[in-house]
């Protein structure tokens, strides 16, 4: 099967700074891929090169079999892009904004009108579609952005930092919408620096650092690679002061006190029963003992910590 998006040694330099450094990226049809990295790590530049909006310094890219440099129109006809902090014409209504997009895409008027209503309804904007966009909240704008992307019925949706500035509930809702794209068979490329969100929706993740994709794989693969498959256990016990005791449990590598009475353990083995026994034996009251599933934050923090210490 040919990949939907494929880059080979894609590189972009601005003067002396390398924004994207020989990137090899492959996206299969129907997957949700997360570009993860801090601000300025080259995510947006990569996306712009995929759309033919910026010329790569060297290397090549193919999107749906087209070269974005030679056939940008063919690429952009099939790929929806929602930029970081998407903007609209504030004085126009939501519907008029989408009409403009539809006209730019050459969608026939009749078909466009129906699709616009369909997409706005789907994004929960059906009631406000004839209100000017300057009355919209951040979350509504973001959903309008997604409607704008879906209007052309894309094969691929590229979303740049789609959840920035949304409150947790709106972000959660938005992620649900992104998952629904996958169900429709749309390939999604998502860029974000919000790790838990990427973790929640992405099939595979590429970790970006200084223009390089330093790690790639599913979340499990990533956490195994970076965290070395260790166990994380969260313990809550009373009274406080068990840190030394817990360090003595066989298999425990590290103990961190989150707050008095709450400890996070890192261990080589599943030593939960030993931990429980020791706390009870010391006369403590065990309130909670559970596996702490490693989050991407841990992967992230650990990776950059290691990278720094190696440097």
């Amino acid at each position, binding site marked *: 099967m040919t990949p939907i998006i494929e880059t080979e040694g894609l590189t972009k330099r601005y003067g002396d700074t390398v924004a994207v450094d020989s990137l090899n990226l492959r996206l299969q049809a129907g997957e949700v891929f997360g570009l993860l990295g801090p601000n300025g790590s080259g995510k947006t530049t990569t996306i712009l090169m995929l759309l033919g909006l910026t010329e790569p310094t060297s290397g090549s890219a193919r999107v749906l079999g087209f070269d974005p440099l030679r056939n940008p129109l063919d690429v952009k006809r099939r790929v929806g892009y929602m930029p970081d902090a*998407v903007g609209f014409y504030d004085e126009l209504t939501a519907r008029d904004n989408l009409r403009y997009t539809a006209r730019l895409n050459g969608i026939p008027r009749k078909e466009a009108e129906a699709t616009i209503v369909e997409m706005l309804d789907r994004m929960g904007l059906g009631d406000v579609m004839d209100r000017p966009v300057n009355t919209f909240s951040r979350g509504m704008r973001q959903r309008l952005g997604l409607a704008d992307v879906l209007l052309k019925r894309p094969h691929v949706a590229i979303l740049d930092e789609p959840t920035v500035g949304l409150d947790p509930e709106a972000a959660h809702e938005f992620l649900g919408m992104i998952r629904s794209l996958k169900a429709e068979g749309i390939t999604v490329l998502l860029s974000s620096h919000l790790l838990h969100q990427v973790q929640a929706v992405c099939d595979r993740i590429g970790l970006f650092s200084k223009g390089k994709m330093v790690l790639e794989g599913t979340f499990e693969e990533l956490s195994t690679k970076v965290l070395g498959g260790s166990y994380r256990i969260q313990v809550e016990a009373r009274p406080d002061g068990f840190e030394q005791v817990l360090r003595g449990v066989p298999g425990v590598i590290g103990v961190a006190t989150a707050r008095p009475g709450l400890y996070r353990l890192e261990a080589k083995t599943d030593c939960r029963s030993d931990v429980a026994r020791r706390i009870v034996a010391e006369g403590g009251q065990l309130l909670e003992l559970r596996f702490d599933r490693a989050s991407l934050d841990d992967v992230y923090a650990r990776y950059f910590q290691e990278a720094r210490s190696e440097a």
Partner: protein
Amino acid sequence: MKREGSPLTGLGAVVLKELADHLSSVRMFVLEILIFLTAVATVYAATQTLRTVVGEDPFVYLRIFTIPNKIGDAELPSFLGFMGFLMPLVGIALAFDSINGEYLRRTMSRVLAQPIYRDAVLMGKFLAGMATLATTLLAVWLLITGLGMLRLGVVPEAREVARGLVFLFVTLAYGGVWLGLALLFSVIYRQPATSALATISVWLFFLVFWEIVASLLFNIVGIFARGGPEAELSYLQLRQVLSWFSPNTLYTESAVALLTPEIRTLGPLLSVFLQAEAAGLIPRSQLPLSQSLLLAWPQLTGLVGTVIILFTYAYVRFQRQEVRA
């Protein structure tokens, strides 16, 4: 590497959108009111004077545009003078935030992610601006002609209409210069306030200071040059060449030549001709339109050429610009 697909894809959509924006914007509404008031005032004042010469003057409709107005004791510029002042204002108002405004609203990358080239965005904005200018001018001209018929009681003749239309074209080209300049600055500067001020500065420079600069330059050259009448003439010509750097001069000269069939030269000898005519030394006569056009041709070409140069430079700058703000 050659890119595929027409650069004009989506041009129509951009033009329509921009045109709708212009025609419904408060900015244009205010300026249009200003222009229409000017037109009404000029027609009123001009016809007051012209009523006495209807029947004697074969180009009475052209005089409406050129004669200085008097309302009561107040001296007003002619309609042509007003246009020389208002067209830059409208051109600047139409374009000073056209490109940087899109960046500021963060709509640029979303629009460019649609299946169009950048060419369509820039060209669409320029064409929509020109179309707005043309529509406004045509409306004003029709208004003036209509009011003129009511006040003067005669119908304009074909040659007057023809000259009027060419005058509209010249005015459009003059407005286009300022539109193009504002568009260029809106590509170069990221803040609409900066691009607006930059364009207004250029306009004021040519309106107020260029004449001073030109005469200074001319005087400096004049110190070294003493000689016969031929040398004298070449200095005068130099002075004129210097003045041609100003779009205002190009516009006024070409418009005057087109609206005043009596004018047979725009060179240094113009005043000599007019004096001789007034003294009856040479017979009064009027040029046909084709000859007036020929007379105004260099200035007209200069205006159109400036528009093209400004647009092309804006185009090059815009093509090379990074999309991310």
